């Protein structure tokens, strides 16, 4: 692990450290300006000389292209993504951006880079694939430029995407809880609008409203929690808070503060019982946006939880118990079971995916619980944090690959949606006949979500279970070797989370398979026999998702190593 470099804002190394964010910023500017470029002129007052200044007027053909904003956003997000990947290939640094007063504001390290990768990757895919998605009528088998919204409306959409990415990357980088919160709000506000973007449809606005209003309440609670923490510690710097917690973290005020903040992030990861708006939001939003909610937005919430629970309120007692552990464990158990049970009977594929995303949140919370349950006394656990790193690796890995197959599934639905809705399972009917490769792709996403090998979803679930079991088993092996006798109850209770997870995986197969059965077995709905709406962009995006899902599933070593590196960089102490 490299040494920490301290960089002041706009000081040396600032640009290289924050290169992806700056690219986003540049892209944002372009998105605002470029679609407005035209033959607009500026008449010098009092003269007849018209100086062309390009803003306004009748726009150029290229700048009036409704797909232009999408291209700009995709290129922006994509290059930011590639930049992050490039940084990974170059080796990671640990750069702290400090304020003039020396307070740590942003921290660039492997951990934040992985999350940037997730955010940019997901948003880039979503942006690229919604290039043909924003249609006036919402329906139409043959997408022509006339049926798309004009490029100003398009620009709004993509601007929001980029701001969303910016907000998320702030969350990833923040070293101050309040900075994190601001990033979170930036991203949230963008997503609220993105969800409600199709204001011409009943469900669109309704989902937007619900998501907004519930999200606002949650973030209100979260902000109040922040204020309590601030009241307690006098600062919201992670470094300060963690020290404070280490000293006197068991009093009510900070813990309740933590609990309230948990509500704010809980909404983002759609943990029960804060998940209720999520299915409605996913169902009402257009599919790429729903995909972003299920992946990037969820990763953002997880990131917040990790930062808050593991850095700020790290369990310090030697038996590895933290006050929030039981809460989180219970939440994880309820969340995964609730999500799966609800998905079981859902006839709306988007809602089904939403509930499945709730279930996945449960799995991730279980992993997080396991990290908390790790025996932090190195003398006892004896593995210098390796177990905790393993679980964190699993969590990160899961978040990364989730982008591939969850977003991919939403993108497949997006194609059907632009044909006239994907709110019934039967709308997937006969997909295998209509476009076999798309059906195969959906099949791969489904079994990957279910955790069937050899897909990435299996590997991620395996890693999570392995992580949890490892924590649960702890050093029992060594004690068995010394002649100790153990029963099942001697294992840490998080083992039962792994068990519940396994059972839930089994339940989940049911509804994932139902999708497959409908695609491969049922006939197409009436009026949907013909070919699907064209659009190579979304198909390319799906292809990328499929390849990632399969490739990572078969050869996930590199990604595991990246995640491992990131997990290690989360905390030097590990």
């Amino acid at each position, binding site marked *: 692990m490299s040494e920490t470099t301290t960089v002041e804002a706009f000081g040396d190394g600032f640009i290289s450290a924050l290169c992806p964010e700056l690219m986003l910023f540049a892209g944002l500017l372009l998105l605002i300006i470029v679609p407005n470029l035209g033959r607009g002129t500026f008449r010098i007052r009092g003269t007849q000389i018209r100086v062309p200044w390009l803003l306004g007027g009748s726009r150029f053909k290229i700048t009036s292209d409704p797909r232009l904003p999408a291209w700009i956003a995709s290129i922006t997000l994509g290059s930011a993504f590639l930049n992050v990947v490039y940084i990974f290939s170059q080796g990671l640094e640990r750069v702290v951006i400090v304020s003039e007063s020396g307070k740590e504001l942003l921290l660039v390290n492997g951990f934040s880079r992985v999350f940037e990768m997730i955010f940019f990757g997901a948003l880039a895919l979503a942006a690229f694939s919604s290039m043909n998605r924003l249609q006036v009528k919402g329906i139409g088998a043959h997408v022509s430029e006339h049926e798309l919204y004009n490029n100003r409306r398009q620009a709004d959409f993509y601007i929001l995407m980029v701001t969303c990415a910016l907000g998320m990357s702030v969350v990833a980088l923040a070293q101050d809880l309040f900075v994190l919160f601001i990033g979170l709000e930036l991203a949230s506000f963008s997503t609220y609008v993105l969800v409600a973007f199709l204001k011409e449809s009943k469900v669109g606005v309704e989902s937007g*409203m*619900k998501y907004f*209003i*519930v999200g606002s*309440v*949650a973030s209100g*609670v979260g902000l109040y929690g922040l204020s309590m923490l601030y009241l307690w510690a006098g600062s919201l710097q992670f470094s300060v808070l963690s020290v404070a917690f280490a000293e006197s973290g*068991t*009093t*009510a005020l900070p*813990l*309740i503060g*933590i*609990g*309230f903040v*948990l*509500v704010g992030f*809980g*909404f983002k990861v759609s943990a*029960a*019982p*804060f998940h*209720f*708006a999520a*299915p*409605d939001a996913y169902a009402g939003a257009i599919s790429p946006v729903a995909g972003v909610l299920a992946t990037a937005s969820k990763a953002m919430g997880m990131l917040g939880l990790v930062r808050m629970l593991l850095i700020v309120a790290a369990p310090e007692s030697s038996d590895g118990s933290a*006050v*929030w552990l*039981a*809460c989180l464990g219970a939440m994880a158990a309820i969340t995964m079971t*609730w999500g799966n*049970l*609800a*998905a*079981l*009977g*859902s006839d709306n594929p988007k809602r089904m995916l939403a509930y499945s995303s709730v279930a996945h949140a449960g799995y991730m919370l279980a992993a997080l619980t396991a990290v908390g349950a790790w025996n932090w006394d190195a003398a006892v656990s004896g593995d210098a944090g390796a177990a905790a790193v393993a679980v964190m690796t699993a969590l990160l890995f899961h978040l990364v690959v989730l982008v591939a197959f969850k977003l991919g599934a939403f993108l497949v639905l997006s194609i059907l949606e632009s044909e006239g809705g994907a709110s019934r399972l039967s709308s997937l009917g006969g997909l295998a006949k209509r476009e076999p490769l798309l059906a195969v792709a959906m099949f791969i996403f489904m079994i990957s979500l279910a955790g069937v090998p050899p897909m990435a979803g299996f590997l991620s679930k395996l890693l999570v279970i392995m992580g949890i079991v490892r924590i649960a088993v702890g050093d029992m092996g060594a004690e068995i070797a010394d002649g100790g006798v153990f029963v099942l109850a001697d294992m840490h209770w998080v083992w039962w989370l792994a068990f519940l997870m396994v059972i839930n995986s089994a*339940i989940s197969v*049911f509804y994932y398979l139902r999708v497959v059965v409908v695609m491969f077995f049922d006939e197409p709905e009436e009026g949907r026999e013909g070919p699907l709406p064209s659009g190579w962009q979304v198909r390319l995006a799906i292809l990328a998702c499929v390849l990632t899902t399969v490739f990572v599933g078969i050869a996930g070593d590199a990604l595991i190593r990246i995640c491992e590196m990131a997990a290690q960089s989360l905390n030097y102490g590990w």
Partner: protein
Amino acid sequence: MASKESAPLVHSEWMQFAPLIILLPMMAFAVILFLGHIFNGHPFWKKNLKEGGLIALPVMAASLVLSLLLISEFLKGNSGVDQIFEQIAWVNTGVWNGGSMIEPVSLGFGIYVDHITVMLLFVASFLCLLINTFSIGYMNTDPINDNRNHRFYAEFVLFCSGMLGMVLADSFLWLFIFWEIMGLCSYLLIGFYYERPSAASAAKKAFLTTRIGDVFLMIGLVMLWDLFGSLDYAVVFATENIDAVAAESAGTLQWALGLMFIGAVGKSAQFPLHVWLPDAMEGPTPVSALIHAATMVNAGLYLVARMFPFFGAESLHGDLDDLAFVIASIGGITAVMAAAIAFVQMDLKKVLAYSTMSQLAYIFTGLGCAMYLANTLDWHHNDKDHYIVIVAFGAALFHLFNHAMAKGMLFMASGSVIHEVHHAHHHLHHHDDHHDDHGDDHHDDHDDHHDDHFDAQSMENMGGLASKMPITATAMLVGSASIMGLPLIGGFWSKEGIIANAWRVAQNDPRFLLPAMCVLIGAAMTGFYMSRMWFKTFAGKPNNEVAAHVGPTNTWIKTPLFILTFVTLSSIIFAGMGFTHWASDTEYSFLSERNLLDGIIYEMDHAFANSDIFFFILTYIAIFMGAIVGPGLAMALYGGKLAEGEEAKPWMRPIIALSAWFNDRFHFDNTALRESTLATALENRLYIDEYYDKAMINIVAGFSNKVAETDAEVIDGTIKAIESGSQSLSTIVRSMTTGSARDYILMVAVGTLALFLLIWGVA
């Protein structure tokens, strides 16, 4: 790894071909099936090869020749026991008996020849050849068999292979394996006319009933295995091994042998597993002759006879007498029961089937008694006892031999009758078709021209055939006489021995009075039903038009009848040669005691002028019952002159005349008897089949339906309940997402409160 090479350890060059006795027919099976499939319907195949019959014939002849060579080698060498081949290590595995070693275990195949083998080998291969000959005459002339005879011959030779293999095998395991192959062939052959529901059901019944016996046989074998660690005769019969077992687990051995005996009961159609045999007559007649009279049913006897060394073992003295009693009693009960049922049968083949059952029961009784003697007498050291045991065992085996020959002949003869009756009917029927106005009024009962309605096997449709089918009638006469035990003919020699031994045992052990009485009464009953059959078929006037038109039979059929008549008549010669001695003990050999003439005289003397007054009287009682009471009654009821102008051969004339005289003098009205409850019960086979059917339907089918229901409703129902339960749970869970944002906020608030309270509580 054990050697898989088979190295011959032969004494002569002929012996190494012994496996061919089994393999030739087995290969012929494949060849006939294959060629038959290809050339089916081809004129050359049909005419010149008799649809495979003429492929089977030389093969069976070769088997017979090889068998005879083997037998002569055996007799020449006078070797007691001979394992011709080193075993082929068929199954190699190991068992663990505690301790730190795995004991290797090998189930191998080899050939084992001793006196019992030799006797049965001859019976089997000889009869197989004869019946093959007969089949060509019988099967190939019936149009109903056209284009499917290759199936018959293929299954036939496979059956022969199984029978010969069973006899030659060197272990109980391989005995069982070939035994099962015979079972399969029996199944296939009974179901030869697969389109008849009755045949299908009979085939199933035969296989299933014997299978039930086989199950116990298998358990018995497994137990035997556990006792000896092997099933090879060489190991199992080794005195030191028997001694070792006897010392520890004689009781277990008795159980094992008892379970094996159940297998024999099934195969040899003894009570209570006898139900399949009468139904098995659904098969073509050669099948009935071969399988269900001459050879396969002998398998059970062979198995029991194979157990003799246990009973005879010194160290097991007195340990196995209960089992011997069971064997003898089952035999006794079956003998009487089957004979009684045979009284009322109208179907020619069914009479023979019950007769088979009854005679096999005799042999079982004989074996049981011999085994009791061997087990209780000090025969290893006392010469007199030794003689008694040997003769008792020999008598049973001799009866096996006699019965096989006679019954094979009887079935063939009955087949010949049926064949000709059928032909005659067919001829008439054909005739009638073209001249509708002619002849209909002559046989009103049979004016329905469907074959189904004419039963060619029913004795009601026969009568007075003695003059029309002289050879057949003669053969039938001799065969019946042999079965009845008429003095000097065939079965007499052995049957007397069995009866005498049963009473000898009964003298020692009063329990044995049951089988002893049974066999004695059975003798009279045999006399009655066999005579009844003969007189109803051959004496008197033809019962209808069809019987009047029956003609003589063809050469293929006559030849075996002729040969077998000769063999049966010459039974005294076998007896004189000391059959009963050398067939039952290794110490005696062919003609070792005395020369042929002396032997015959000795046997005569022994039979008719026994020095022991008890047996002297017993002999005459038996003769009286078997040769006078039974036949006398039969003649009184069913005897009669032939039709006008018909004349039987001179040697049958007096008998027919005698029967006519009896009929005139002693005829009585037996209607009341025929309509009695007992007769009805007998006609319904004592309702045993019905009980079994009821048990099958009510208990087995009912139980299995219940279980299947449970499987679908409880076990699978649980799975389905889990599924539907989770679906309804899902509905509940989803209904909590009401759609109102207010409720969502409420849930957030509730969650917040819960966290608040939880943390407050903890902190």
